[in-house]
């Protein structure tokens, strides 16, 4: 706005006064704008402060369950205690887990042992059952052959009985070799002679994987009746997939040693009485 005195001032002075006024007006206008801006910012910050205080209050309420002074610190201690308790429980659980894992491994090992034992007993049961399932000499012989072939895994072998008159071994049956080709040594010859005299089986474990050599049997097992050795099973080699003997195989040789000869003897006696079938009840008078 122009002052009335401006009329009396020269033009140059008039321009200076107008610029001064304009400057002052602009200065105050900008100052007002800045003040407004500061007030808005102040308002915004106050609102933010209220928000933060409200959040703090809510969090504080969560920690101060009982509302007592210093509740936050107490809640914090409780939390730390709880974490320590949980850590302890975790450690105990880990310890128990390790124990359970060890027990589980033990059970697995025991299960495997029992499974193996069960398998072995099944083999022995079936072998024994079959051995005494017939009084037919040919069938008893065949069963002994099958036990040696299918249960033990012998490939080339013979069942030989002692001819006590000629003091030689005679071949009852053979597998993997023709019966006529089976060596029939004297009862005092070599490994067979040793087994016949000692009654103890012979196992040449180092040669289980070797090819058949009739001069060197890998197994010679005695066949006994009441402690008397009446024959032998001679094995020259095992099946290709059979590289060694398992516990059950040794047990099967023991079983054959104790039962095979008796089964053969019973079958032979029955055959000799073929025209006079044995009457079991007559045994009553013999006891």
């Amino acid at each position, binding site marked *: 706005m122009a002052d009335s005195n401006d009329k009396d001032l020269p033009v140059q002075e008039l321009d200076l006064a107008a610029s001064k006024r304009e400057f002052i007006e602009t200065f105050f206008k900008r100052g007002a704008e800045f003040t407004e801006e500061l007030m808005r910012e102040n308002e915004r910050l106050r609102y933010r402060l209220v928000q933060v205080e409200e959040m703090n209050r809510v969090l504080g309420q969560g920690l101060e369950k009982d509302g007592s002074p210093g509740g936050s610190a107490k809640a914090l201690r409780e939390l730390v205690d709880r974490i320590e308790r949980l850590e302890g429980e975790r450690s105990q659980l880990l310890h128990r887990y390790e124990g359970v894992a060890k027990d589980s491994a033990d059970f697995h090992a025991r299960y495997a042992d029992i499974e193996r034992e*069960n398998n072995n007993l099944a083999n022995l049961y079936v072998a024994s059952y079959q051995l005494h399932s017939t009084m037919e000499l040919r069938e008893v012989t065949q069963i002994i052959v099958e036990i040696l072939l299918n249960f033990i*895994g012998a490939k080339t072998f013979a069942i030989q009985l002692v001819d006590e008159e000629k003091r030689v071994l005679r071949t009852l049956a053979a597998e993997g070799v023709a019966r006529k080709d089976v060596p029939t040594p004297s009862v005092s010859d070599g490994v067979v002679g040793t087994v016949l005299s000692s009654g103890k089986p012979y196992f040449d474990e180092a040669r289980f994987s070797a090819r058949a050599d009739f001069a060197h049997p890998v197994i010679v097992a005695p066949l006994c009746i009441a402690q008397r050795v009446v024959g032998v099973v001679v094995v020259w080699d095992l099946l290709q997939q059979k590289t060694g003997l398992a516990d059950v195989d040794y047990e099967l040789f023991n079983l054959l040693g104790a039962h095979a000869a008796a089964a053969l003897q019973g079958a032979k006696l029955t055959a000799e009485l073929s025209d006079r079938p044995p009457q079991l009840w007559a045994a009553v008078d013999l006891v």
Partner: protein
Amino acid sequence: MPTALVVEDSPTMRQLIVFALNRIRGLQVIEADDGVDALKKLSTQKLDIILTDINMPIMDGLKLVRRVRADEALKNIPVIIITTEGAEEDRQRALALGANAYITKPIQAPQVIATVKKLLNIV
């Protein structure tokens, strides 16, 4: 209830295999002496798996596998060969004929049981 057919000429061996199979809960087992006897039984009843020896009189195990695979009604029945023949070429020949598994004697019951369970999808 699945049914297994055990084809084996040796009664001793047959009993041992049956003994092992009887440990599979719910599995019925029937027996045949040779391939011809097996085919007779296959024609009269529904069987789910065959376990057969190779060396048998009248009809051997390999002929039996051939006949089973050539028969439209039987061709999908799983066959397990159980034999003393341990050579790799024997195994390959049996598998080429259509056998599903090949087990060598002397058998281990757990192996027989596991193979049958696998082929019959028994858990």
